[in-house]
């Protein structure tokens, strides 16, 4: 009885279906491993080149980019090995999809050097204006003693304010929030590192 039952289960449609799906999924997985191994190094090179290009446009006099305290934070050095500042990746949700920025700050994290948009899917003509010089220019040499704020439809009155893009407040706010949270994190990490170095 029991044997008969087992046999009927093994030869049943259920097992056939499971086996067929299992085999196809297994083979697909194996094929993807090859594709992944082939493309991963190339993808990493592409991302690194993109980051480097962005850092170079923020710090034109850059000579050397060194990995910093954390992944995606870089120390930027000039020809005499003087530190020009720090560059780091900031990302967050925009109006549609993720916005990724490369941000540059001065060595004391007191002044902003600027940022480059390396990825965004914002609306053309509205949110996509975050990539223009007009918007990005406002962040050049912006003081960071106070968190960055945005104002709408008027000229900024305080030194830490920037003017949001008309009709694209969400994108402007996303950029400002990303910058504020990442800058304070970078500052914290750098202070911690400095404190540790002093102890030694």
């Amino acid at each position, binding site marked *: 009885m029991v044997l008969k039952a087992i046999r009927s289960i093994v030869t049943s449609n259920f097992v056939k279906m499971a086996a067929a*799906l299992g085999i*196809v999924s297994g083979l697909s997985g194996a094929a993807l491993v090859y594709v992944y191994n082939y493309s991963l190094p190339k*993808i990493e090179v*592409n*991302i690194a080149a993109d980051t480097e290009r962005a850092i170079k446009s923020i710090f034109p006099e850059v000579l050397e980019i060194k990995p910093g305290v954390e992944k995606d934070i870089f120390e930027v050095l000039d020809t005499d090995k003087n530190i020009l500042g720090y560059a780091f990746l900031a990302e967050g949700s925009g109006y549609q999809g993720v916005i990724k920025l490369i941000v540059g700050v001065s060595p004391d994290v007191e002044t902003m050097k600027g940022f480059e948009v390396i990825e965004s899917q914002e609306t*053309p003509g509205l949110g996509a204006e975050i990539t223009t010089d007009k918007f990005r220019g406002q962040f050049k040499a912006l003081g960071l003693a106070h968190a960055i704020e945005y104002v709408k439809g008027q000229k900024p009155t305080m030194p830490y304010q920037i003017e949001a893009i008309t009709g694209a407040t969400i994108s402007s706010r996303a950029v400002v929030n990303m910058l504020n949270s990442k800058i304070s994190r970078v500052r914290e990490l750098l202070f911690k590192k400095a404190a540790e170095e002093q102890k030694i």
Partner: protein
Amino acid sequence: MIKDFLKGLWRENPIFVQVLGTCPTLAVTTKALFGLSMGLATMFVVICSSVTISIIKKLVPGQVRIAMFTVIIALFVTAADYFLKANFFEISKALGPYVPLIVVNCLILGRAEAFASKNGVLRSFWDAFGMGMGFTCALIAMGSVREILGAGTIFGFRVMWHDFTTWTVMALPAGAFITFGLFVGLFKMIDKRICEEKEKQV
């Protein structure tokens, strides 16, 4: 066989006649180049999955065939996505999530279910090739119109006069719908003319 190929281009054009895969059609056709790359990626996936499915069609248990087709399609989509990321990084960034979303393009599952699972390998290949070609041409046509009016360029080359005022709406979703509607109408109109001509001859 040549019929299998040609029907995808015109009479059963996946976008303008069957109205399949409209999501990428509307989303990525802001530039002709993006339309071309999306079309080629989709063509690769539809050809590979149709051929694979028509090879293994006898081994597929009927109840799980959709699940199986989806796994096979996902395999080729992921491969295409990684290939673009590795070799055409800028294009891959511009297309964003729409490359992985080829998995759910009903054009591909539709060809697998309606054609490849019932026909031989060669015919499935030509059918998929024709459909992919029709899809690509449609995307390029949409992308060209929207790029010319929305940015004044085509494939990045300036074609409009110097102080041409760009129609931003054409780069926005609304422009996609307008262009799409006009193309569908144009297809219907030409098709009607052809039918009338044939009737007259008879």
